[in-house]
């Protein structure tokens, strides 16, 4: 197991390096820079600003400078949100995105799995159809529809929660984004669980357990569940990485100061260091979560072993 872990770690570093290199040069392919805008700056001033930010150096040199700084843990300053370094912006925003994302994942996994299990146990009855209907609705309704509807109903009409803002992360501010963010995942988890549970319940060892007279509860939760949960674990890895690094739509509509909005905003602004920062962040999270998923596989399924 240890050798496996070390091997994984060893491949993570070159993977990250390739991602950074590819993204850096791809980003510089796009025309325009952080200081091109409607209010055209006089060319001499623009040249001067670009010099201050080292943007007038050849791209390969900027790349080497960036990698050197990255290896030393310096993500650089933001070119557009001045007076804040990329690291500072993440320090402020990542805990918020992670908080909402984690709870959304938990909600999706717990509620979704439960719904999926119930549907599998009551196949082709009305409760099964209800779960499938909810799942379909959840995965087809986009968040930029569900979020404003939530704001309208719970914020304006019922006045149960604020319409937007983070306000120190109190429950009433966080609950809306958490629910909206979890809906699409919940739908997918429910369907996955239902499908894999049905399959798991028809396995040989379940039939044996049944014949041996074990209770339904014990069969489902102790034996079938272990097998059924594997597809969910596979799915949850990358999904968690996405959720925890924030959803741009939910954060924009609910006005949450997370890191999700930086993904698109920084690209549109040509804020090079922030773009690279977000790329590095999501690459790291994805690699880490995929690794955790593989470890969990070994734990859950005794048939899986790594050398």
């Amino acid at each position, binding site marked *: 197991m240890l050798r496996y872990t070390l091997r994984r770690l060893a491949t993570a570093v070159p993977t990250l390096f390739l991602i950074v290199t590819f993204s850096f040069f791809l980003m510089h392919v*796009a025309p325009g820079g952080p200081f091109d*805008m409607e209010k055209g700056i006089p060319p001499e001033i623009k040249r001067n600003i670009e010099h201050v930010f080292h943007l007038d150096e050849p791209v390969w040199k900027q790349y080497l400078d960036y990698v050197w700084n990255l290896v030393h843990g310096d993500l650089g300053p933001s070119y557009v949100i*001045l007076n804040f370094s990329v690291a500072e912006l993440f320090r402020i925003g990542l805990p918020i995105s992670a908080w909402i994302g984690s709870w959304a994942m938990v909600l999706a996994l717990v509620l979704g799995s439960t719904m999926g299990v119930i549907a599998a146990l009551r196949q082709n009855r009305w409760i099964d159809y209800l779960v499938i209907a909810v799942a379909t609705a959840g995965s087809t309704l986009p968040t930029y529809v569900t979020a404003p509807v939530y704001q309208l109903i719970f914020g304006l009409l019922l006045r149960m929660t604020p319409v937007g*803002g983070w306000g120190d992360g109190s429950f009433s501010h966080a609950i809306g984004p958490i629910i909206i963010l979890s809906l699409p995942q919940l739908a997918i988890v429910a369907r996955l669980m239902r499908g894999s549970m049905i399959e798991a319940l028809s396995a040989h060892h379940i039939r044996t357990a049944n014949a041996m007279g074990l209770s339904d509860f014990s069969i489902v939760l102790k034996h079938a569940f272990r097998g059924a949960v594997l597809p969910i674990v596979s799915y949850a890895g990358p999904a968690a990485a996405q959720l925890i690094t924030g959803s741009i739509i939910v954060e924009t509509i609910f*006005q949450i100061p997370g890191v999700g909005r930086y993904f698109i905003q920084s690209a549109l602004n040509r804020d090079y260091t922030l773009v690279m920062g977000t790329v590095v962040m999501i690459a790291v999270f994805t690699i880490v979560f995929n690794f955790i998923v593989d470890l969990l596989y070994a734990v859950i399924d005794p048939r899986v072993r790594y050398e």
Partner: protein
Amino acid sequence: MKAFRNSLIICAAAIALMAGSAQAAGTWNRGANSDVQSLDPHKTSTVEEHNIMVDLFQGLVMPDKESNLIPGAAESWTVSPDGKVYTFKLRRDGMWSDGTPVKASDFVFAWKRVLDPKTGSEYASMAFPVLNAEDINAGKKKPEELGVKAIDDFTLEVTLKGPTPYFLEMLTHHAMYPVSEANVTKFGDDFVKAGNMVSNGPFTLAENVPGDHIKLVKNPKFYDAANVSLDAVNYIPTEDRAAGLKRYKAGEVDSMNDYPGEQLDEMKKELGDQVHMTPELGTYYYIFKTHKAPWDNPDLRNAISMVIDRDQLAEKVWKNSMLPGWSLVPPGVKGYTPPMMDYSTMGQLDREDAAKKVFDKLGISPSHPMKVEIRYNESENHKNTAVAIQEMLKPYGFDVSFVVTDGKTHYSYLEQKGDFDIARAGWIADFKDPVTFLNLGHTGDGNNYGEYSNKDYDALLDQAAVESDPTKRMDELSKAEAILVKELPVLPLLYYGNHNLVSPKLHGFADNVMDVHPSRFVSKD
């Protein structure tokens, strides 16, 4: 006795409650349509940042609630007869929020800083009228050679390159505001962080959380603090206009500086006169690449202009959030009446007839179509405008296609003088003077993307630049614009409108063409 004591307690509690809620009511929650780039007055560029700067700092002169010029850190000034030397007398009671006095040396320090190439200030050009400023910014001269001198602690002498009639207006721009020399020397660029920053305006910086809020609190050391009603101002970025509208309706923000145009009708019904739509000093226009055929023909350019139904654009596409524009400089600058295109008073059908005659003469018709490419930057409204214009031009034989790119790509392309037929642009005034628009047509100007060049036009602008008589100057500018409006190298389509939602609880919020609303003059119920 017990009853008396109990009622005393109740009274005290009631008073405490009222005082508590009065304090909370003294906070203006101010929705802003975008996040802020920086709180350094020498590094910011947007209107929203300008409003924050006006709250935090006091320049020599400042805008009042109607954006008219009033004394700020300077209580009086004199101008030399040749218009080149300004002598400002600073207020003796002007103080930084740490208790130190605002001195002339702070202005000298600040202006040197904004011009220092190492600062990388986008608006260094605001200081260019000052002697040697441009050369210092280009690194050709030393900062010590700047034409500004602190005669004594409270007297500032400014020497200009040449007489600049709009110099005082330029001083209302935050790039020309002072910073405390001691504060910036101590903290460097980090002086903008809450807790470090020292400012001389009606408010000081309490908190800055990017994407969430910027909190300013009343500055007790401000010389006019007695007349400042608000205790605090929260600038809250709300990029999603629809969500911002909902927050406004829920009372979470007391004002919004933009709203979703597509909901204008419902908003007007529901919110009535809380919806403010007033002219702004900005123009939405298309640029012609005037040095290549056939776009070098002013008759063609004017004919296209005649065919475009600006009323329809304003009403249907922009839901009346913009106004039809017939000149480059929008109305609203005191003392200046912009000359309009001479067919602006004709009916639309008459215009179309006149245009058709021109197209016939040029041989353009549906059977002999002409290809036109319009470039614009990605946005729902820009797209709808372009498509509407495409429809308006089609019957006359114009085959219009589009090239759509995102904002940065679009402007970078224009700036590098890329080739195009027609390109979309917009211009919002930096300060209240027609010259900020008219410079767009001057030969060699950085924003003259169509590369228009007219010696007479240049001559009039250059003459106005050194004209000391304000009336004569406005006349020269007007003559210049008349040339522009006749030759039409740029095609003004619409004037921008300011969109604000203002709660009836706020008082002292005055609509003005610069959309600047100093919190100093605002009170809340």
